């Protein structure tokens, strides 16, 4: 990392920035969490989140290490289509808009995505779904914790283990203090920081390098990045679209927001967030294309963004990227901590271990689950497992298998439990096979296709006749005996 050494932040400045923003996030979390100790307030922010905060939280959560660090990485590997492919991740947000409205209508008192799968498809599908969902959540948590450690180390020289520990513990602290209300409140501020930061960096890159020089340098040194027919890049484009769909459709991060948004807000909030999100991966990823023009030697693909910023802006660039990525990581890490804790609390603790737990017991347990999940994430982040994109795309095979069971389950009464179980199971297995035999860029594609065929085929062979009224609020709020038997 010799290149970074010339422009790295002084560790003291790094610590000051970390301390300042950590204090800000924790203070917002504490302030928003005051007087809202009830379980529903902690988990779902009182179910009255408005359009502005709803849009910002959906957007901030979806702008994560993907867009700030892995998007430049993908652009450096797959070029123009890599950037555009990343922006297709927004399709997940856009298509979740009608689902969010449907979810709120069918389950006005629901808590988690697990609630839906349990009541819609029964215990086997529920447990398989929980395995997939929790595995994905952990993969995402680890990728963000790692990204935090990598960034802090690269920019300040602070050891990976220490930087990662700081980011994870700060997110745990304010999530613990204010629950989803703290998460959504900090998300709004973080969204503004992220968008302004990446926009500023893009304008600087455009101004300093210019499109002609940038194009010429890429064409000379990495012509494949401008190839509009690069097969791997085109596969990546569609794969990323389906990966994004799978991530959003199944994950409790998005379901918990659908439950938390005020009535009528889910649809416009997700739609607006999706539209605003489209340009972000292009803006964040495009800086990778200035690497040849800047004559940068990139030692690790996931360090492209920070290196370009540091080259363009010196120490100020390092500070800017540091703040932006810290905000992006925190906005996603906190959301995932809160939503995964909800899933663990409602579907694992209450659903499997303590069906008769009182609201007070659940409220106490909710805090312990947040702490426990934070510690677990921290422990898994300690060894740096691989590059960010590799880790992230490994989970693609898992989440894409849930697209059709979820979408069909919400709108199509004929979709049945056998199709959902088979779709998730075989979609995941064949998606993983594609990941290892072909490449990361087809895992979600294969998984979603297999799952679709099985869900559709099962419904044709033995059509279900699901009554939407079975997603009754009374049964939604507490797992019923027969469902978990």
């Amino acid at each position, binding site marked *: 990392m010799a290149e970074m050494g010339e422009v790295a932040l002084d560790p003291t400045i790094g610590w000051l920035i970390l301390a300042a923003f950590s204090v800000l996030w924790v203070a917002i979390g504490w302030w928003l969490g005051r007087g809202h100790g009830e379980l529903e307030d902690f988990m779902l922010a009182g179910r009255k989140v408005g*359009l*502005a905060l709803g849009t910002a939280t959906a957007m901030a959560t979806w702008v994560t290490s993907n867009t700030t660090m892995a998007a430049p990485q993908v652009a450096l590997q797959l070029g123009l289509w890599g950037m555009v492919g990343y922006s297709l991740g927004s399709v997940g947000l856009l298509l979740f808009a009608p689902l969010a409205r449907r979810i709120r209508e069918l389950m006005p008192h629901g808590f988690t995505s697990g609630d839906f799968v349990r009541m819609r498809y029964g215990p086997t599908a529920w447990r398989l779904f929980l395995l997939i969902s929790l595995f994905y959540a952990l993969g995402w948590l680890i990728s963000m914790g790692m990204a935090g450690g990598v960034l802090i180390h690269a920019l300040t020289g602070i050891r990976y283990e220490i930087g990662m520990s700081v980011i994870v513990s700060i997110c745990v602290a304010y999530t613990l203090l204010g629950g989803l209300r703290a998460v959504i409140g900090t998300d709004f501020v973080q969204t503004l920081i992220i968008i302004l930061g*990446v926009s500023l960096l893009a304008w600087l890159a*455009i101004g300093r390098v210019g499109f002609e020089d940038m194009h010429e340098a890429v064409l000379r040194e990495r012509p494949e990045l401008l*190839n509009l027919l690069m097969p791997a890049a085109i596969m990546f484009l569609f794969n990323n679209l389906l990966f994004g769909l799978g991530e959003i459709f199944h994950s409790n991060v998005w379901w918990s927001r659908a439950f938390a948004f005020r009535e009528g807000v889910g649809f416009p909030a997700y739609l607006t967030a999706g539209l*605003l999100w489209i340009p972000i991966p292009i803006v964040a990823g495009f800086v990778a294309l200035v690497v040849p023009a800047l004559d940068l030697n990139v030692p690790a693909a996931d360090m492209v963004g920070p290196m370009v910023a540091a080259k363009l802006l010196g120490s100020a660039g390092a500070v800017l990227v540091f703040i932006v990525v810290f905000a992006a990581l925190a906005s996603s890490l906190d959301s995932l901590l809160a939503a995964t804790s909800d899933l663990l609390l409602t579907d694992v603790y209450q659903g499997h271990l303590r069906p008769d737990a009182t609201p007070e017991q659940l409220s106490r347990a909710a805090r312990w689950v947040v702490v426990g999940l934070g510690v677990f994430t921290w422990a898994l982040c300690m060894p740096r497992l691989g590059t960010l994109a590799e880790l992230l795309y490994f989970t693609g095979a898992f989440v894409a298998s849930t697209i059709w069971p979820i979408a069909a389950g919400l709108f199509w009464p004929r979709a049945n439990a056998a199709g959902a179980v088979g779709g998730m199971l075989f979609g995941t297995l064949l998606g993983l096979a594609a990941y290892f035999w072909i490449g990361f860029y087809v895992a979600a594609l294969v998984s979603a296709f297999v799952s679709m065929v099985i869900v559709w085929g099962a419904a044709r062979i033995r059509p279900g006749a699901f009554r939407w009224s079975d997603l009754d609020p009374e049964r939604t709020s507490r797992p019923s005996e027969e469902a978990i038997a």
Partner: protein
Amino acid sequence: MTASPDLLRVVVLVATIAATLAPLLLAVLFVRDARRGRLW
């Protein structure tokens, strides 16, 4: 088939302008919700 400088320019400029305007829209929505008492 290679992307031309103009294609690169259009894609990146449109995205950057849209991203730059996004915080303004969020701020407007925030003020509107706050005035109506519908932030939370």
